[in-house]
Every structure is written in C-alpha cells, then in structure tokens.
C-alpha cells in the first residue's frame, strides 16, 4: 500500500504565543518549530506500521518554504521513504488541500493520512477538503485501524463514544490519539534521512478564501482567590453566588 502522510510544521507546545504587526501576524521569533504531534505520533507511525507489515511505501508531503525541510527530515528519520514539499505559502486550509489534491491527481496514493488537527490553527479542515477534491471518503478522528481482504476497518471518535466503519478503495483519514504509539528516531534513521529523496514542486496559484485580521491573547486572570481547605462550604457559596456556575 502506498500511503501519503500530510505533515505540517507547528510551534513547539511549550511556546509562548505572541503576535506582531499590530496583532495581524504570528510572531515566530524565538519559537522552536516541531512536526505537528498528531501528524507525527499517530498518522505517520500508523502508516509506517502498515507498510512495514504489508509492503508499499510512505510518502510524506508538506506545503511550505525551505525552512520546513527540517520537519520533513524528521519524518524521513522516523522511517518515511520519500518526501514531497510543495513550495508555496500554506495561506489557508483550502490552499493547502487544493495543492495536495493536484499532487495526488498525478499519483494517487492508496490512502492519505493526516493528523486530526494542527496544534496552531486547530482547523481540521484540510482532510475533508482534500477528500472532497478527490471525491473519496473521509473518516475523522481515527483511533484504530486494521486491514483485511482489501478493506479497511476504522474506529473513529464520536461524541461520547466511538463508531467502527469499513471502507474499500482510497480514502483520507485524520488520526487521533490511540491510532499508534509515538516513536523516537534513532541514529541510523537520522543518517538515512539525509539521503532520502525530497522532491520540491511548485505551488498552484490561488488566493486565500479566509484571512486572519487580528489575533488576541486571552485576558489575564485577575488573580486567584484562595479558599481555606477546611471551608468547602465557602467555595460552594462563591461558585454559586459570585461565579454563578453552579
């Protein structure tokens, strides 16, 4: 099976977020970037496992500029066979999906995996858009996947539970916790990643449908009100009378 894993670059989870140019742009200064955890821990690792046991190859794809090569090399170090970078600005979800779809139309993979969301823009939009552009099924928030007799059984998270479904033919899935266990790249993987093919292709031209006009940080809390551990009646009173949440 040939699996395409779409990966993105996100600020490290410990990052303090700030903005520039009158709060219209993310301030990347001093930020360490990582491979988006959902793409890395779950989508990529499950794709690698499937190829390790059933044959085929894992291609990772990212849209962005050359500064993204470092996260692409990380995916290669984890075991992906080859990489593609679409050289352009991932301006909004549609731009990204449109570019990936154009690439897929030249070489259609058997399945496309991506993380359930990126931890920066939390969109969950690229997967369903890509599936629609390719006119194939999309299964969201998959936390378990098995294959047998040419069909794939997937379990997806739904509100308050899970749903198990079956799909035949190419599909797009978004990966959630549980689908696989995080791997750590080893020295051999890191060395091999340097020589694995990374193809850079030009982006389509297009304009973003959605633009960010202003970012804001949440208002700082006015300070904690301490309640004595011996007086939980007082806490209940505060939650009821002042905070009005119970």
């Amino acid at each position, binding site marked *: 099976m040939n699996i395409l894993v779409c990966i993105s670059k996100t600020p490290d*989870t*410990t*990052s303090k*977020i700030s903005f520039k140019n009158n709060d219209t742009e993310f301030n990347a200064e001093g930020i360490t970037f990582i491979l988006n*955890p959902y793409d890395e821990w779950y989508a990529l690792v499950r794709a690698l496992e499937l190829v390790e046991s059933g044959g085929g190859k894992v291609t990772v794809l990212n849209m962005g500029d050359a500064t993204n090569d470092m996260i692409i090399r990380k995916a290669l170090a984890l075991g992906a066979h080859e990489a593609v970078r679409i050289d352009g600005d991932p301006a909004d979800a*549609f731009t990204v*999906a449109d570019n990936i779809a154009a690439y897929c139309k030249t070489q259609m993979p058997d399945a496309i995996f991506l993380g359930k969301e990126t931890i*920066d823009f*939390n969109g*969950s*939009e*690229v*997967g*369903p*858009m890509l*599936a629609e*552009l390719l*006119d*194939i*099924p*999309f299964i*969201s*928030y998959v936390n378990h996947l098995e294959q047998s007799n040419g069909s794939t059984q997937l379990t997806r*998270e*739904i*509100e*308050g*539970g899970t*749903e*198990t*479904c*079956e*799909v035949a033919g190419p599909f797009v899935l978004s990966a959630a*916790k549980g689908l696989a266990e995080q791997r750590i790249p080893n020295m051999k993987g890191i060395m091999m990643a340097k020589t694995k093919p990374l193809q850079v292709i030009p982006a389509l031209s297009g*304009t*973003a449908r*959605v*633009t*960010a*006009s202003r*970012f*804001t940080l*949440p208002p700082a*809390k006015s300070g*904690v*009100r*301490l*309640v*004595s*551990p*011996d007086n*939980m*009646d007082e*806490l*209940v009173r505060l*939650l*009821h009378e002042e*905070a009005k*949440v*119970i």
Partner: protein
Amino acid sequence: MSVLVYIESPEGKIKKSGHEVATYAAKTAQILGTEAIGLLIGQAENAAQLGEYGLGRILQIHPSENPDFDAKSWAKLISEVALAQNASVVILTHSANGKSMAGRIAVRLEAGCISGASSLPDPGTSFAVSKSVFSGKAKVNYQIQTSTKVISLMGNTLQPEKTGGPGTVEVLDKKLDTPSVKVVSRQTSTGIVPLPEAELVVSAGRGLKGPENWGIIEDLAQSLGATTACSRPVADSGWRPHHEHVGQTGVAIRPNLYIAAGISGAIQHLAGVNNSKVIVVINKDPEAPFFKAADFGVIGDAFEVVPRLTAAIRKFKQG
C-alpha cells in the same frame, strides 16, 4: 439569500448543541437581514420545536429513518439543499460529524470555511468570525473572502434562546447517495455529557497517584453532574481512557466550570482548558503554576479536599 443550519439528531434526538446552532443561525440571519432555515437528516423528535429558536423553516430528509453517517454523501446532500435554498451561510455543529463535513461542503460551494467559530459574524467590512487558536492560547478574527460561507460552531459559544413558537416541518423529497463508508457498529456511553459539550468538568492529574484513587473524582463529578477529564500523563499511563485527556494534544474544552485536582498546570494542559469560564485548582503545592491561571484555589491535599468539596456540594444541592 438565506442561512442554512444543519441540526444533528443522533439516534433521533436533537441535543442542546442543536439548539445552540439553531440560535446561532437565527441570530446570523438577523444580522444579515435574511431567513434562517433548519435542515434535519433522519428522524428527529420534536423537530417542530426548532422553530422556537428562531428558524423560519425546518426541512427534513429521511424523516422516518436513522441513516448511518458518511461524510461524503451527507456533505453532498447538505450542499445540494444549500444551493436549492440559495444559502449564503451554511452552519454546522463543530462535532465529529460536523467537522468531517464543513470542509467538504466548503469545497462544493466554493466557500471559505471557519471551523470552531466562537462568535457571531461581524458583518462590518467583511464577514469576520473569531475562533480560538493555538489550542486556546490565543484567539483570531478571521475574515471570509468568498460570497458563500461555511461555519462550524464551537459548543458553549452561546446559550440556546427561545424567541417564538414552534415551526412547521417540511419533508423534502431527496435522498442520501449510497454511503462511501459502511458503519459496522457504534459504542456510546449514555447519560454522560461528552467533554466538548460539558458545562461542568472535574479533572485530575498525576497528583492522584493511581487509577484506584479516582473514586473521589467520580464522586465529585457525580455530585455536580459534571464530566470527568484528566491530564495527559494520566491517560498515557492508562489510568484513564484517552478520550478524557484534555490539553493542547487532547480535547480542548470550554466549560463554565473546570475543577482541577492534582494537576500542575503545564502550558500544554492550560492550552486546552483556559477557555473555561471559571477555574478551580486544588493542589498541595502553593507554587503550582496552575494557581496563576485559576479563579479560585485551594492549597491542600486532594485526598482530603475533594471529598469535603463533594460533601459541601451535596449539602448545597439538598439545601
């Protein structure tokens, strides 16, 4: 022009999140000076009551069946209705199914899409909607540049509001295509409000020392009618199920009340919970970073404080 809102009816029932999107659609329609139309797919008890939330018309397809979900065929059907109703805005719930369809519908309608919106649109210069980004560390105002817009609404963004009497339900003679995905089984726990929709959440971390100690957390949750959650290492160690993991790499929540016991308040944890309206932190370490993000704090041993709080709540509820 119209605003079309798809209202979920899992197992034939419309939930509070359904009334939230109906209210949101009615208000959006009011802002745009147009009509809000509700769409149901499958059975839905009390469908006509949706009119009370301000929907001018309620359309229903497959009114006596419970068809299984499939993003591809459902998104196609909703898009077709949107086109037929000349909808300039399509609204969905930001749920597992809603998220699976928003992007697909946007592609079909050549629309810009905002998933997880947390404000009503500001019609000003260009349709602007805000949403939480960086897993709750910040907010952004997005502008949609296309004439048609697709929005999925984050739970608990607004309260359902009744503004009128019941509506009438028109059954549409349309059908879902053959599904592209076959649903084999569904496992849902009944009675518990799922975390993304929960108004009250009780959460615990590694300070609870082991899974055998979760009884006091469940008791507290039960006394409030709250949903339980946990920190990442707790889920990773298998003390609690993965779906309870909140934070930057877990579920992002925005309840009215979040009570955290034995959780240090690491930046990744805060990211997923700091949109909670009120945060109560119980921790024995006065230096725990979580106190900086809390509204109310109790410095003490969770094993003593939590049962006391449960007792106080029970007393309050009886009183």
